[in-house]
């Protein structure tokens, strides 16, 4: 009798679809993969099996319950469930005026017909991950999985266990790439639980300069799951602007980690714009690992209905004389829940650190909530650290000023909400992206109801 109660539990454990997916992958491609990739998958899987999905008793996941993800019938997208991705169906997610390099990944796989690989600056390498793995590109082998460590959290571990798809980009030393590189990750499965673990590696050579835009979107209103990891490696003096756009369907789950590593005098700007998904959790974690680094982190999250959007940023000041600036704005309506947790670590070595953090939130309804928390851990003594978080409504003085010029109350409010979003979007230097997002904000906040 006892055996029969234990047996189902055992088989249930074995049947975790996330682990099953790993086992399927292991059988299909792992044997032919180079040892460093296999090691990554194995350690990812081992770590995931050890820790499992976090629950809300975990300090890092207090406000974000990933139970619905853990209960998904996770599977790799199946051909019979897919909506065809065509130039028409993906056009809302592309930036029309652009003629530069665009890579479109459909359900994790590079779609060459939808992509445009022309216009790449000489010497720049953009390689889809299966090719990079097959060719055993040394620069990929040297960096992949080295920064976003599988013991970071369950989702990075899962991504590592399933590492297969995505893209690797290398900017050679001293090369300035004028045109931005666009990467679109599109999910098209109509089946709940369709899961893609995408991976991005960007290696910016010393004194190079580049801008990369990474978008995530979906075509089907299903409970699909996108779990992405990006590793940004900035060598000495490199300058990188990384713009991450999350436009998933509001039925979808989206978890992401952006892990950056900065060498001496490098300059990183990250933008995380999060508009979609039923649940979005984005970790942005730069490590300033040498002197003279600059790091700017911008974020905008907009949520309504039952959406939950969670940003956890962790900036590691490991060495002296580095500056970091962080500006995150949130706009929450309906019953939306927002979470912002901004950690700043200043290690004992990191004297003369200058770190600023601002998180401002607008709550547009009584039922919307935000949990915002700065977390400063400072172990050096000669340090300037400031942080500020605000939660509130629009400023009465500003509303009155607009009304006193003839603009109606509702229009004035909308104009100010839009402006609140724009003050983050205006930090994006890529004109096409900024204009595109600003149009989206206009549609969201200012376009009068038809």
């Amino acid at each position, binding site marked *: 009798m006892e055996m029969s109660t234990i047996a189902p539990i055992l088989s249930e454990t074995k049947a975790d679809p996330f682990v099953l997916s790993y086992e399927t992958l292991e059988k299909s491609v792992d044997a032919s993969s180079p040892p460093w990739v296999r090691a990554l998958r194995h350690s990812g899987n081992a770590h995931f099996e050890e820790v499992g999905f976090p629950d809300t008793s975990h300090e890092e996941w207090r406000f974000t319950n990933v139970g619905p993800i853990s209960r998904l019938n996770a599977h790799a997208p199946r051909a019979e469930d897919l909506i065809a991705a065509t130039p028409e169906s993906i056009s809302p997610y592309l930036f029309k005026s652009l003629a530069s390099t665009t890579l479109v990944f459909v359900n994790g796989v590079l779609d060459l017909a939808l992509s445009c690989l022309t216009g790449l600056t000489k010497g720049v390498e953009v390689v889809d991950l299966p090719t990079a793995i097959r060719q055993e590109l040394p620069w990929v082998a040297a960096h992949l999985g080295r920064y976003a460590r599988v013991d970071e959290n369950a989702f990075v571990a899962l991504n590592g266990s399933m590492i297969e798809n995505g893209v690797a980009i290398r900017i050679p030393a001293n090369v300035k790439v004028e045109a931005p590189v666009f990467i679109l990750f599109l999910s098209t499965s109509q089946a709940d639980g369709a899961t893609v673990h995408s991976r991005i590696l960007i290696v910016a050579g010393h004194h190079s300069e580049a801008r990369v835009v990474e978008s995530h979107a979906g075509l089907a209103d299903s409970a699909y799951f996108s779990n992405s990891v990006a590793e940004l490696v900035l060598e000495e003096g490199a300058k990188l602007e990384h713009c991450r756009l999350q436009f998933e369907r509001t039925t979808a789950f989206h978890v992401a980690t952006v892990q950056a590593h900065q060498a001496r005098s490098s300059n990183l700007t990250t933008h995380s714009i999060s508009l979609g998904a039923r649940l979005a959790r984005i970790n942005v974690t730069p490590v300033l690992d040498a002197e003279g680094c600059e790091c700017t982190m911008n974020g905008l999250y907009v949520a309504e209905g039952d959406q939950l959007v969670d940003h956890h940023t962790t900036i590691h000041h490991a060495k002296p004389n580095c500056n970091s600036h962080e500006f995150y704005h949130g706009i929450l309506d309906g019953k939306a829940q927002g979470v912002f947790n901004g950690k700043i670590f200043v290690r004992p070595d990191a004297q003369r650190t200058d770190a600023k953090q601002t998180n401002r939130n607008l709550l547009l309804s009584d039922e919307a909530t935000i949990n915002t928390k700065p977390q400063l851990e400072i172990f050096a003594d000669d340090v300037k650290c400031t942080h500020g978080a605000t939660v509130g409504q629009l*400023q*009465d*003085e*500003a509303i*009155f*000023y*607009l*009304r*006193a*010029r*003839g*603009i*109606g*109350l509702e*229009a*004035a409010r909308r*104009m*100010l909400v*839009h*402006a*609140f*979003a*724009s*003050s983050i979007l*205006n930090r994006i230097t890529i004109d096409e992206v900024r204009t595109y997002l600003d149009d989206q904000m206009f549609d969201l906040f200012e376009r009068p109801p038809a």
Partner: protein
Amino acid sequence: MLEIKNLHAEAAGKKILKGLNLTLRKGEVHAIMGPNGSGKSTLAQVLAGRDAYEITAGSITYLGQDLLDLEPEERAREGVFLAFQYPVEIPGVNSTYFLKAALNELRKHRGLPELDAIDFLQLVKEKMKILELPQSLLNRPVNEGFSGGEKKRNEIFQMAVLEPRLAVLDETDSGLDIDALRIVAEGVNKLKGPENAQLVITHYQRLLDYIVPDFVHVLYDGKIIRTGDKSLALDLEERGYDWLLEAYEKNGRRAESVPA
């Protein structure tokens, strides 16, 4: 055009205006002077419709309408304009976008077609010249990072674009150097006409060298205690307010009735 009768207003339980009477006719320029805390800015804010002030008694009639019945934006559309003492910085709202939206609201209200971007820009360029403002200000967010003088000139620039019937200037001269003062005053004077009126609130007589008022009123203790012509401003410049305030106190805190 504007008739204020026995106006009482308070903010957070504190009585500020205590029976103010004032009449402006078309084509007139009135100046309101008075020491700090007398209620000058409250009057300006009440006219524009700021809801931080509660009207406890009295009435304001503007072109035959009950002004207190109108929302701030309705007042603006009816031609009331307040040049703010402290113009608000509005990060993220582009100046051109803001002003075009405001002008088109006014035009819609008057049954005029909305201006397109090209016509608007042409209009704006002309008006900017009057105020000697750099055109680059138009590309910046409203008042953000403007110097004190730029903010004040920007208020008058907006006034020039919106062409109000009743303009209320709340200490537009404060913080301006003499050149900026002259530019602002010239701008205001160009907007003077037989169909509109101006209420100029100021601390100092020097603005009235450039904007010549038909009437000068002294506001104290929440009411007008003395009305005269432009020579009253010169008197005040020379002798200060004390003689007037003393007379007012001696008179049992009753305003001397001086016919306008």
